[in-house]
């Protein structure tokens, strides 16, 4: 059962990583313009930085 001491924090850490990643996408304005971001991949002069 001692494996729990490793596995439990590890799985929670993975979950926290996901929340952190989501928080980052939110802070980086990645949900502000879903339509435009979808359209931008079709443009040849690629510009992938949100302002």
């Amino acid at each position, binding site marked *: *059962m001692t494996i*729990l001491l490793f596995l*439990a924090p590890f*799985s*929670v850490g993975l*979950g*926290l990583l*996901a*929340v952190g990643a*989501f*928080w980052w996408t*939110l802070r980086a304005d990645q949900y*502000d*313009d*879903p*339509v*435009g971001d979808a*359209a*931008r991949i*079709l*443009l040849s*002069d690629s510009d992938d930085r*949100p*302002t």
Partner: protein
Amino acid sequence: MALSEDLDFSAFVKPEPDGGRLDLLVQNARCAACLSKIEQAARSAPGVSAARLNLTNKKLTVTFAPSRSDAGAVVAALERAGFPAVPYDPGQAQAEHDREGRRLILAMAVAAFGAMNAMMFSVPIWAGLFGQELGPATRTVMMWLSGAVGAPCALFAGMPFFRSAWRSLRAGRANMDVPISIGVLMTLGISFSETVLGGRDAYFDAAVSLLFLLLIGRWLDHQLRAKARSAAGDLLALQAATATVIKGGELAVRPVADVKPGELLLVRSGERIPVDCEVESGASELDNSLLTGETRTVRAVRGTVCRAGALNLSGVIQVRALAASEDSALARIARLVEAGAQAKSKYVRLADKAAAIYVPVVHTAAAATFAVGWMVGLGPREALIRAVAVLIVTCPCALGLAVPAVQVTASARLFRKGLLVKSGAALERLAEVDHVILDKTGVITEGRPRLIDADPTRLAQAAPLARATRHPLARTLADAAGAGPAAEAVRERAGQGVEGWIGDRKARLGRAAFVGAATEATRETELWFAFDGETPTRFRFSDRLRPDAGQAVAGLKARGLTVEIVSGDVAGPVAEAAAATGVETWRAGATPQDKAAVVEAHAAAGRKVLMIGDGLNDAAALAKAHAAMAPGTALEASQNAADLVFSGEGLFAVVEAIDMARSARRRALENFRFATLYNLVAAPAAMLGLVNPFVAALAMSGSSLAVTLNALRTGVQR
């Protein structure tokens, strides 16, 4: 056409440390191709360092290099590329609102994480409940782990509810967030004490998943308001509350709020008078229909005092501002609207009504469970666990989700039909109305002149001249005639008409005197046309009924509503419109005060009035009515006062909106009934101690799923 080249939009550039920023609304931006064209056009303008279009909300943000900002050049470049743009002020409120939305999303993400990970440790505990081999020591470890993950998440995700509950308690009321907060905090507390005491019941996962479900409802409600607000803002930005100021021979476009008394302004034909003012030079005709409801035009010459909101029909006029924007007649009406909006915010929403019954009942039941349990000898600990179990299973997540889910579904369906719902409360009020008051001009009628009974050959002859001018009536004439050649050597005479050559013949189009006809007083707006030396012909224009006005009135009556017309226009046209649409009760010549008084009289008689109007003269009545609707062509103040805005030609949208609101109300009440039924089963079970953490988790998510699925049925035709 391309006037923006000479105009100075610099008042709209917001200064920033490194240059300046200009926000523009580009209404016809639709696809990837538009996106690159628009950004390239904007970047090609001098001084522009960056341009970025948000295709979702059609806002273009242009950044200027330091000390070089020519906003007019950007607007002109966009216009040349085929994308007319209007300056847009996102405003402080919008940014505030976005922050609130982000906070909710983050709380939701944390709650989702907490629910999943706390549940991970709860599953072994649940398995132990069904006689699997789980020793008390392992169970306590699992409970500790579940608590370590679940409790901090619940405290963080619950903040929006705790804060709102605290605010409402301080105001001496109890909203839905009070029982939620008490429930969550008590659940966390009892779970901790059970974990410490080595007990069996820990509800950490239940507390955090309850918050997750509630946050979904909260976020849906927030999105609904955010979307409506931005769509309403776009509509108003298109009306461009700007004024062209003449200063030292230069033209500058400024927000209307910045115009000072005494300044000289230029008003072109087709524009609205920005502030109360006096005509300095030029001559034109003014359409006051949005101000007074009267369809007859008024002649404006030097010395005429014009009121803000009137539409300049024909010539270009220079006017001297008499009052600042906030002192104009327009602003006085806007203040009336604000007062009305405050009164409306006192309206108690369905969910809050339900909470008012729910809170005392559930809390009494929980307290009784504790008291009776202790009395019959369960011991304080077991009695408290049962009381908390009652709080958990009767959790208001079904209630918290029931109404927002229904209203979001209904609003989305209405939005697709071109109807903008400002808030969920608006839908609830609309469902309750039993009397409809219609304005005539712009509501029953289209609110703009249409050519009537024209002779096709004369129309074809006059069309080339009409195509060569921007006069609104002439544009109507040109539209009626269709595409074709334009006249040559056209000269415009301000407030008179146009003169030009059609082939090798000289012709005139304009006022009777200008064309050479004997003037006769008529009610209708008219244009005269003649070739040089020939007898003039008259083109008559009339404000036409909306094609489905009669059908809409019949539809309202079929739904048990009484219909009335209250208009500011003279009796003749009002009586005609009433007869044509089948409305028996009508009133003409009503002042804005009269309209508001009619609404108040009905309200005093206990009726719930739906007011539909577009003019400034309706704004006070719109604000006072139980529910209010305005067409998308209405003035800013009226749109602000309305709960719903319908774009498009049809008046039948009103009937559709009422149907949808009623359907939403039915679904919401169904959901409440379902939640009540569920609680009637779950609460006694919890009191008898039949609920364990596993049952609580199942029951909670099951009931939420049921109400959400039911909400999706809103507005589906049977």
